[in-house]
């Protein structure tokens, strides 16, 4: 294992035991029981330092589960997770995690939410707040520091979330359909913001989405997962579109269409399988 591989997931199995579905309880010894759900089977994936990788797959295919394994929030039932060459035990301290749902503390202002990651690390409040101001400006929210989450739009809350994660300067960024709840235009604007920030300090990014266009527009590599149960990685595509990219304009590029067609041919089968599985 080379230390320039930021995330390495090897032969990951994730089985939810029938008894408990709580996050973090997937590793449970004993024989398989009826009702166990074998979510992910033998998934192997690695992300280089500074690489932007997206995982795309049909609904319920275990994309987020795999991401949780990389974050340490969930321990896989089998397989190894290593971060920069070291086996991961407990939480992944080198990773920042952007959640799909609202994850800001509603009782803290935007500024307090951004500063908290530094404050809990022992940095004094004044310095932490100064840095938080800087990061709020970076995500385009200068002057919004005193607002509470409920006083902001969904897009603004996502921006605060991004600043909250980035202020800690993690080497790895894990993103679980972060722009899922936003409208189409806001998603593209957020995509561009993410690309701009990512270009400044290239972090390894593992980005989960169900939107193939978004994945292609942002990533260096797009990984396809099969539909669940026992979903695994069935495709790995390099995206050779020039950088810097504009997340909106790149969609008009002929190269984009060629890649999109190639990936969609494979993905469509999985989406239909998942759809039939649901409607059956």
């Amino acid at each position, binding site marked *: 294992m080379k230390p320039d591989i930021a995330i390495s997931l090897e032969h990951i199995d994730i089985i939810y035991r029938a008894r408990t579905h709580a*996050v973090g309880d997937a590793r449970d010894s004993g024989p398989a029981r009826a009702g166990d759900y074998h979510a992910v089977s033998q998934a192997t994936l690695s992300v280089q330092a500074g690489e932007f990788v997206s995982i795309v797959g049909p609904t319920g295919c275990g994309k987020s589960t795999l991401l949780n394994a990389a*974050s340490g*929030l969930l321990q896989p039932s089998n397989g190894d997770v290593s971060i920069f060459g070291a086996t991961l035990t407990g*939480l*992944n*301290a080198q*990773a*920042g*995690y952007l*959640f799909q*749902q*609202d*994850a*800001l*503390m*509603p*009782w*803290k*202002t935007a500024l307090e939410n951004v500063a*908290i*990651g530094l404050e*809990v*690390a022992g940095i004094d409040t004044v310095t932490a707040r100064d840095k938080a101001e800087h990061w709020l400006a970076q995500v385009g929210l200068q002057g919004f520091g005193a607002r*509470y*989450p*409920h*006083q902001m739009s969904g897009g603004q809350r996502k921006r605060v979330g991004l600043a*909250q*994660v980035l202020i*800690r300067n993690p080497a790895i960024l894990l993103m679980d359909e972060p722009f899922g709840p936003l409208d189409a235009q806001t998603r593209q604007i957020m995509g561009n913001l993410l690309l701009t920030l990512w270009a400044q300090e290239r972090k390894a990014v593992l980005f989960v989405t169900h939107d193939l266009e978004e994945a292609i527009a942002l990533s260096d590599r797009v990984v396809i997962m099969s539909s669940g149960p026992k979903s695994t990685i069935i495709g790995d595509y390099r995206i050779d579109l020039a950088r810097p990219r504009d997340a909106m304009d790149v969609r008009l590029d002929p190269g984009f269409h060629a890649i999109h067609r190639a990936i969609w041919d494979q993905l469509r089968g999985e989406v239909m399988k998942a759809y039939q599985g649901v409607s059956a």
Partner: protein
Amino acid sequence: MSVSKRTLLALQILVAVVALGIWHIGSSVPIFGVYFLPKFFFSTPWDVAARIVKLFSGTLIWKHLGITLTETLLAFVIGAGGGVLVGFWFARRPLVNAVFDPYVKMANALPRVVLAPIFMLWLGLGIWSKVALGVTLVFFIVFFNVYQGVKEVSQTVLSNARMLGMTEQQQFRHVYWPSALSWMFSSLHTSVGFALVGAVVGEYLGSAAGLGYMIHEAEGVFDTTGVFAGMVILAAFVLIVDAIVTAIENRLLVWRPDAAGRNA
């Protein structure tokens, strides 16, 4: 339902005027030679008003109010403090909760008034037996709310806190505590109200001071005017306490969408 504040206030005053009018007529104007609300049982609005004015021109009423207020505050502070501590403990230790669950339900189902004589036996006729009665009422309200508040912390917010590098202690301070507090404050009106109920009922059942004692004493000599005056003072006292609680609530829960909406 768009009624202007002024109209609403006018309507509210109208209700009071009508009620007082009926009371006044029933108690002082004979209809077909009969008083529908005999003075002996219902007193009259003027007598009650005059009594209240007389009471407040003396100093004794302030002493009674002070005692009742002290009892209410002590009952609230001790009951809420205990409720917060035990609520946290139970929510974080499922085993403790499972073991004590039937006893908590039992204790909560008990009508607290039956405890009043026991508290008087244990703690005497002074303020502490009333405080104890209020505590038993406040404790359970706060306890259940804090327990719920800790249990219902958003898993996403908690996972986020962990990924941001918070230790157990920091999660307690930045996530569990604010969540539990918000639940506690949402029950603030109820719990302060119950603290007052505990104090007044305790005084009523046996004491030498306080609003409950005042009312009880008047009742003992069939002084209906005194009883009604005591009730009016008690009601006004509750309104003032409630207004203070609302002000505190709006200040502390400014981050909550509904609290902000009320301000706007």
